[in-house]
């Protein structure tokens, strides 16, 4: 048994090591006829320095809205962060004036997106778009910025960086554009890189290259990564810790090893089943029956109950809370309530 003092010390250590802390985040969208879509509903998590945290879940679970909330890039109207706090190294982001928040974007937090084909401005050169980011946050001359941009392009794997810098986005392939996006996101050595499904739109062979590149960048600059994905294979490969999101809530949080080996939540179990396994011969790929309910029609009780094979009467009545099953493993499910705190 640990003494309380030791515990206190370790949490102080944790504080020091903590880069991002999201507390009780609620991002709602106003819909027609006064309906409210609770896209992100009371989400809390943290990311440590140098850590790669994966945020997984199906489409519509609120992963992207969570990441855009951290950047404060939720289109308002209709969206709005209605509650919560987001601390980046102790600095509260949600109350920052817009101009100070703009200083954080691209400088402390870099972001890459799912759609490399449309994420770059089509009428400006690659060089212009990298230089724009560099000159926004660093006091350097244009010529210096161009040299830096060439250097960045070389780091992300362009051997002909001097040529690429003068090319336009439409002249590059999807994988190349995503490399450019990474170069832009990393241009000011951000503390946190948010990658919103960075490989979903790419060929399988290119996916691995982009993931490896992100991991190399993380090592080189010591950044933390928040990786949003629905690909459990990717999670197993690169994540340290995993957050599983369903219908706007975090339903399970665990170290990557525990998530795969000591899976708790029925939803996580179902997600893991959807990974094709080459050693087990299957006639059909597994899938989770049904879809995520739309964010303005969340059912009473557990939001997953309708699709859950373990659902009990209680699940349709009472909202389960996030139980700390063990220090690093949290789960939102009535099945684990009695053994809570073990």
């Amino acid at each position: 048994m640990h003494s309380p003092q030791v515990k206190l010390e370790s949490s102080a250590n944790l504080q020091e090591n903590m880069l991002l802390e999201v507390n009780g985040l609620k991002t709602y969208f106003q819909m027609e006829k006064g309906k409210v879509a609770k896209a992100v509903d009371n989400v809390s998590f943290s990311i440590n320095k140098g850590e790669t945290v994966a945020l997984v879940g199906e489409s519509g679970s609120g992963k992207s809205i969570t990441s855009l909330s951290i950047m404060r890039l939720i289109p308002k109207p209709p969206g709005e962060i209605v509650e919560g706090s987001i601390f980046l190294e102790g600095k509260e982001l949600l109350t920052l004036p817009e101009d100070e928040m703009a200083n954080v974007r691209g400088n402390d937090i870099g972001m890459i997106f799912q759609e490399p084909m449309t994420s770059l401005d089509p009428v400006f050169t690659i060089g212009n778009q990298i230089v724009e980011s560099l000159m926004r946050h660093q006091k350097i001359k244009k010529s210096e910025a161009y040299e830096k941009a060439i250097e960045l392009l070389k780091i992300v794997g362009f051997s002909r960086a001097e040529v690429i810098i003068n090319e336009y986005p439409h002249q590059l392939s999807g994988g190349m554009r995503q490399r450019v996006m990474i170069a832009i996101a990393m241009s000011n050595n951000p503390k946190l890189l948010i990658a919103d499904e960075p490989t979903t739109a790419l060929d399988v062979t290119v996916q691995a290259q982009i993931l490896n590149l992100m991991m190399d960048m993380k090592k080189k600059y010591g950044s933390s990564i928040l990786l949003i994905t629905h690909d459990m294979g990717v999670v197993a490969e690169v994540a340290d810790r995993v957050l599983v999101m369903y219908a706007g809530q975090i339903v399970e949080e665990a170290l990557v090893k525990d998530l795969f080996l000591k899976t708790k939540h029925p939803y996580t179990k179902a997600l893991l089943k959807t990974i094709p396994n080459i050693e087990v011969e299957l006639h059909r790929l597994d899938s989770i029956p049904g879809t995520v309910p739309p964010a303005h029609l969340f059912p009473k009780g557990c939001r997953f109950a309708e699709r859950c094979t373990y659902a009990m009467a209680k699940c349709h009545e009472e909202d389960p809370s996030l139980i700390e099953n063990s220090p690093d493993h949290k789960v939102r499910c009535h099945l684990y309530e009695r053994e809570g705190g073990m």
Partner: protein
Amino acid sequence: MAYIIRRIILFVVTMATVSLITFSVFQVMPGDPIRIMLGTEADETQVETLKKQLGLDQPLHIQYMDWVKGLVTGDLGDSIRFSRPVTELLADRLPVTISLALITLIIVVIVAIPLGIFVAKRQNKLSDVVFSSVTQLGMAVPSFWLGMLLILYLGMNFSFFTISGYVPWTQSVVGALGALLLPALTIAIPQIAVKFRYVRNAILEQLRLDYVRTIRSKGITEKFVMYKHVLRNSMIPILTVFGLITAEVVAGTIIVEQVFSLPGIGQLLITSISYRDFPLVQGIVMYITFVVVFINFIVDILYSVLDPRIRLN
């Protein structure tokens, strides 16, 4: 380069097609210019002589070829009514119409674009209703009536404006502006009422696109997002619409020149049609076509400057 060559070919083909249509229209149009010139009392020999003189006794395809040959060499023939070369008549009237069209275009551009941006930034239900009513109104107002209102309320009250007639630039710049500003406004106001919405829509369209989110994620401030990226990208669809304005403005000058008694091409066109002065009408139509097609050609070239994706194809 291949892009520009293709545009040039298109330019020539359009001009050729229009020349054929213009020529044919006069063949099927009722009313004989010679009868109008000579009056109802003219005898047949007089008619025949004049016909020969004007080359109207030739077969149609030869008449057409002669006319096209003239077009290419810059000789548009002689006006039947004025007995002067069409090119000379055009040259007299051209400065008036060109000045009017240019001032109109400048007014439309410097009002419609900022207004479109302004409205796009404050997008909500109330402003949508207000501004779409403005558009409806602008489209519905006939330009001759708007012109008369402007004469009544501005022209009569401010001595700066000349409400009838024209003062050449060479004589007095202020005078020329005073004569042209009200007619230009008459054409520009309905144009602005419609076109600013295109600007607004183009900008809102761009604001929805993924790349805008990327730029914001780099920490770029809204001012730069709007004026460096969004406006630049919106210019591609906006340019299309403003290319079309040119044709509408030229058409607008025809009526407005009547209202303000401006001695421009439009006025000349209307009188020459009623006299069946076909060399003059054909010359004017070809000239207007040339201007419109030429502007579109310039617009196409500008596309390739604005949009790198077109540059390569």
